[in-house]
C-alpha cells in the first residue's frame, strides 16, 4: 500500500517542565481543550484500524497527563507498540512501574547534555540529575531504553561524552538529532546553529561510534540538513507513513505542519481518522509527486526525498510548494547559504528565548 500510516505521534499535552530553546511545539499554541482519556483511546483504536502499529506518546511532557497509564492500557488494547517520549522529570519508580504494568513497550528519555551544568542550562531547569535517576531505573523494570539528545552549537563538542553516557546507562538506542529549525528552534536559530567545523568533527565521531557499538547499541545520527546538499525525506513523504494528533485533537501530516500558512486541519472530535487520512484536503495537499514544481517534478530523486520538507520550504521561501531550499538544485538555495554564512561570520548572539508553556 502506497499511503499507509505506520506510526502515530500523540502529543498528549503542551505542558512541560522543561524550557528547551529548540522545542518542536509551535511557538503560538493552538487554543482548545485537551482530548480526554476516552477520546484518546478512541483515536488509538481508529489508528490501529487504518494500519498504525507504533504509538509515540509525547507532548510537551506526557507525564503531565495523570491518565497516562489508562492511555497506555488503551494503546495496548488496540494492539499498538507504545513508546513513551519523555523528559523523565517526574518519572518516579512507582509511576514507571505503573506505566509498565499498563503495557508500556519502550521508553525514550531526552538528555540535553552529558553533564548537569550544561544540561540544566539548556533545559532551563534543574532536570539532569532527575533524568539520570529515572534512566538508571528503566532497565531494572525491564523496559528498553532509548536516549534522545538534540544536538546544536552548545553541546555538539560534547558528543563523545554524550555517547559514553548512553552506554553507561545501558541504552539499546541512541538518537542524536541535530536541531531542526522550526518553531522555537527557528526562533533561536542563530544561537543553535553549529559551525561547519563542529558538524564535520561530529559526523566523524558519530560514524566511528556507530561502528564500534554495532550489535550493542543502535546509534541514529540525524544530520543537520542545512549543511547537506540534498533535502531530508521529511516524514518519508507527506501523508505517506506518519500522522500526528496534537493535544486538542487536530490531525497533522507532520508535527510542524501548523506552521504552513493556509492549511486547515481536521479534528478527531469532528471526523473519523480514516477519512482524515484518506480524504482530507490537508493530507492530500502534498501527497505523491503531482503537486511538485520543477526541478523536483523531473528529478530522479523525487521518490527518495519527496521534495524535502514542506514546512521548511514555506518558512524559508514563503512558498510551501517550493523545492526544499536545502537542495542545491533549488533556485532558492542561497537562502540557506546566507544563513550559514552569517553563522560563520557573525559573533554569537546573546541569549536564546526559552520555551514557555501555554
Amino acid at each position: 500500500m502506497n499511503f499507509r500510516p505506520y506510526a502515530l505521534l500523540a502529543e498528549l499535552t503542551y505542558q512541560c517542565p522543561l524550557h528547551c530553546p529548540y522545542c518542536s511545539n509551535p511557538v503560538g499554541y493552538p487554543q482548545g481543550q485537551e482530548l480526554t482519556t476516552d477520546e484518546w483511546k478512541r483515536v488509538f483504536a481508529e489508528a490501529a484500524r487504518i494500519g498504525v502499529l507504533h504509538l509515540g506518546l509525547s507532548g510537551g511532557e506526557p507525564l503531565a497527563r495523570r491518565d497516562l497509564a489508562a492511555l497506555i492500557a488503551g494503546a495496548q488494547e488496540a494492539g499498538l507498540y507504545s513508546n513513551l517520549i519523555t523528559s523523565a522529570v517526574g518519572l518516579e519508580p512507582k509511576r514507571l512501574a505503573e506505566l509498565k504494568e499498563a503495557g508500556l513497550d519502550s521508553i525514550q528519555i531526552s538528555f540535553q547534555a552529558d553533564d548537569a551544568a550544561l544540561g540544566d542550562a539548556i533545559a532551563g531547569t534543574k532536570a539532569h540529575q532527575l533524568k539520570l535517576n529515572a534512566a538508571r531505573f528503566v532497565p531494572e523494570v525491564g523496559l528498553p531504553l532509548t536516549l534522545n539528545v538534540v544536538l546544536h552549537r552548545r553541546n555538539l563538542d560534547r558528543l563523545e561524552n554524550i555517547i559514553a553516557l548512553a552506554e553507561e546507562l545501558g541504552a539499546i538506542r541512541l538518537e542524536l538529532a541535530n536541531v531542526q529549525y522550526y518553531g522555537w528552534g527557528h526562533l533561536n536559530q542563530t544561537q543553535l546553529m553549529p559551525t561547519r567545523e563542529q558538524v564535520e568533527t561530529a559526523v566523524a565521531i558519530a560514524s566511528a561510534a556507530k561502528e564500534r557499538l554495532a550489535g550493542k547499541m543502535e546509534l541514529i545520527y540525524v544530520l543537520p540538513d542545512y549543511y547537506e546538499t540534498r533535502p531530508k525525506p521529511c516524514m518519508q513523504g507527506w501523508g505517506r507513513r506518519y500522522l500526528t494528533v496534537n493535544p486538542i485533537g487536530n490531525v497533522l501530516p507532520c508535527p510542524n505542519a501548523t506552521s504552513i500558512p493556509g492549511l486547515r486541519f481536521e479534528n478527531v472530535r469532528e471526523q473519523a481518522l480514516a477519512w482524515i487520512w484518506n480524504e482530507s484536503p490537508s493530507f492530500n495537499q502534498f501527497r505523491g509527486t503531482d503537486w511538485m514544481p520543477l526541478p523536483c517534478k523531473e528529478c530522479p530523486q523525487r521518490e527518495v526525498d519527496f521534495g524535502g520538507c514542506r514546512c521548511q520550504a514555506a518558512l524559508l521561501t514563503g512558498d510551501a510548494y517550493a523545492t526544499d531550499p536545502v537542495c542545491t538544485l533549488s533556485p532558492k538555495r542561497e537562502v540557506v547559504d546566507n544563513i550559514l554564512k552569517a553563522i560563520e561570520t557573525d559573533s554569537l548572539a546573546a541569549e536564546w528565548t526559552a520555551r514557555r508553556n501555554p
Partner: protein
Amino acid sequence: MSAIDLNCRPALAAHVRLQIDPVSNEPVLLFPEGVLVLNPTAHDIVLHCNGKAKVAEIVAALSDEYEIDEATLRNDAVECLADLLARNLIVVKS
C-alpha cells in the same frame, strides 16, 4: 557480537514483539521505531526462538514441515538468525 552456531539458543530480545499485522495479515516484528515484515520461513523460525531450543533443534523441527533438504534449511535458518542478531532483534544463549 556473538555469531550463530547450531548449539546456541536464540530468543526474541526483550524489546521485540511478534504480532500479525491486522492490515496485511503478515507476521511482523515490532521494536522501538521499527517494523520488520517476516517471510513465512522467518516467521516459523522466530516462533521457535524461545531461549530453550538450540538452532539444531529448531532446524530439525522445521525439516519435518518443509520439503527441502536439511542442509539448505540449516543454511537458511543460520542466515536468518544472523540477520536478526545483527539488528539486535534476538539474543543468543549458549
